[in-house]
């Protein structure tokens, strides 16, 4: 009796093997689902995070919205952002007469991002009081040295290079 059970079990087992072959055989005949990367691209890049970039003013596409407050640099868990403020310009003759010191412009002199340290967590984007940072679409990024990933985002904005160009500086 026990033997009979075992034989039945073996027969069922053999059938499960045939079922498996049938499934892989079917998939063998179906088209591929992979995408050939350099020739094709995936279609979900819109939400994919590239390194951060500065958002320009609405009316001036060369000046960043950034107010050089440094909140992002403080919020960053990896310390990869360094913001330097602009110095006030030399006072004009009128200002000297009136004894007013010229105000420094709000936008930063440089906005350095060390992308080698960045973990793309988005704390800087969330913390920015001026909504001046967003994730770029620059995701096909490659370089030969670490220096290739030290970006100055202000310069990158000014140069207004097309997004697919690798180097920002």
């Amino acid at each position, binding site marked *: 009796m026990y033997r009979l059970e075992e034989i039945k079990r073996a027969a069922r087992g053999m059938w499960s093997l045939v079922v498996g072959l049938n*499934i892989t055989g079917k998939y063998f005949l179906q088209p591929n689902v992979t995408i050939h990367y350099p020739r094709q691209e995936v279609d979900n890049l819109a939400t994919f995070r590239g390194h951060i970039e500065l958002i320009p003013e609405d009316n001036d596409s060369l000046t960043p919205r950034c107010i050089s407050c440094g909140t992002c640099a403080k919020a960053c868990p990896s310390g990869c952002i360094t913001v330097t403020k602009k110095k006030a310009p030399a006072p004009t003759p009128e200002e000297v007469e009136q004894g007013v010191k010229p105000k420094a412009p709000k936008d930063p002199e440089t906005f350095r991002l060390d992308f080698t340290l960045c973990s793309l967590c988005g704390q800087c984007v*969330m913390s920015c009081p001026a909504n001046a940072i967003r994730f770029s679409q620059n995701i096909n990024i490659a370089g030969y040295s670490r220096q290739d990933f030290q970006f100055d985002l202000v310069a990158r904005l000014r140069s207004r290079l097309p997004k697919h160009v690798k180097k920002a500086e």
Partner: protein
Amino acid sequence: MFTKEQIAERGFYTQHFEQGKQDNSLILNMGPQHPSTHGVLRVMLEIDGEYILRADPVLGYIHRMHEKMAEGKTYAQFITNMGRVDYLHALAWNWAFVGAVEKLGETPPSPRAEYLRVITCELNRISSHLLWWGAYLLDLGAFTPILYAFDDREELLDILQDLTGSRLTYASFTFGGVVTDMSDALKERITRFIARLRDRLPMYKSLVTDNFILLGRVEDIGHIPVDMAVRYGATGPVLRGSGVAYDVRRAEPYSVYPGLDFVVPTSDRTDALGRYLVRMQELEQSLNIVEQAVAQIPAGDIQAKMPKKPKVPAGEVFFAVEGARGKIGCYLQSNGSGSPYRVKLRAPSFSNLSLFAELSQGTLLADAVSILGSLDLVIPEIDR
């Protein structure tokens, strides 16, 4: 505590190997570069033929000291670390930490955010289980299932990328909310994915679960009686595979889980097959949860109104969530300053792996691989 010299004198680095090699046996180091130790786990084995006399896992190869990092960071900065403790179910860890801070500060998230958390966390659980499924079969010598699983997982990661901004190391929960909202198009996409995976699960079953050879590899292997699970504190599918219906989502309800209809699958088999079946059923249950959450999600803000820097009062809190591998706990002590005073991360794999030494004694080498796989270990979570 032993000094360095004493350790050197003992010759072996682990508890179970203090007496050294016995006659006619072989000391074998499985890992840290072994294909089926999933990353950098090392298991020292003493084998007689292919039978394991003693086994002892050696940890620490990917230890990063997250708990120390917490003390030097602000609360918000530490969320980023949480995506990297368990890279397969990162959102559960996000939730454990964010939830602990919210609980201590008594600042609950907005209702919509609660649902978004449930949706993303459950989708993440599915992606984790899918990867486990593929990797486990890879351990057992079947190559193809992991690619089928990845086919589905890819669609899932696309959805999660839309919902969270990342594909693997998520840091998408904030104190009081989540980062990204869900659009209607995405809602539809999730519904489509649920239908798609439900279509695929029968194929998974007939290709793998019913397979005669697979059953031979997982049946009656690595029995974990309930008592053993209690002694070692095993949780998650490992425990449920032993017939205990313990799930943090039900036992210590958090978020909107009490309002969602799902069952906690268990299996009385207690062996590797039991754990396998439990995980396969959890896939279906997670799909049910996502389906309900997507249907019930209220409109509103994704972020509750609260200060940008959370004010965490002094005190202690333990917040547990159900991860793909078991109970994820975040124990937080705060002294009222801007950084945590002490964070203890309770990793489920840590406890689940600690019973391996006892579990694998007397089994075959191939079974040890099968048992390791059935525990579903994520080494970075164990080493933290």
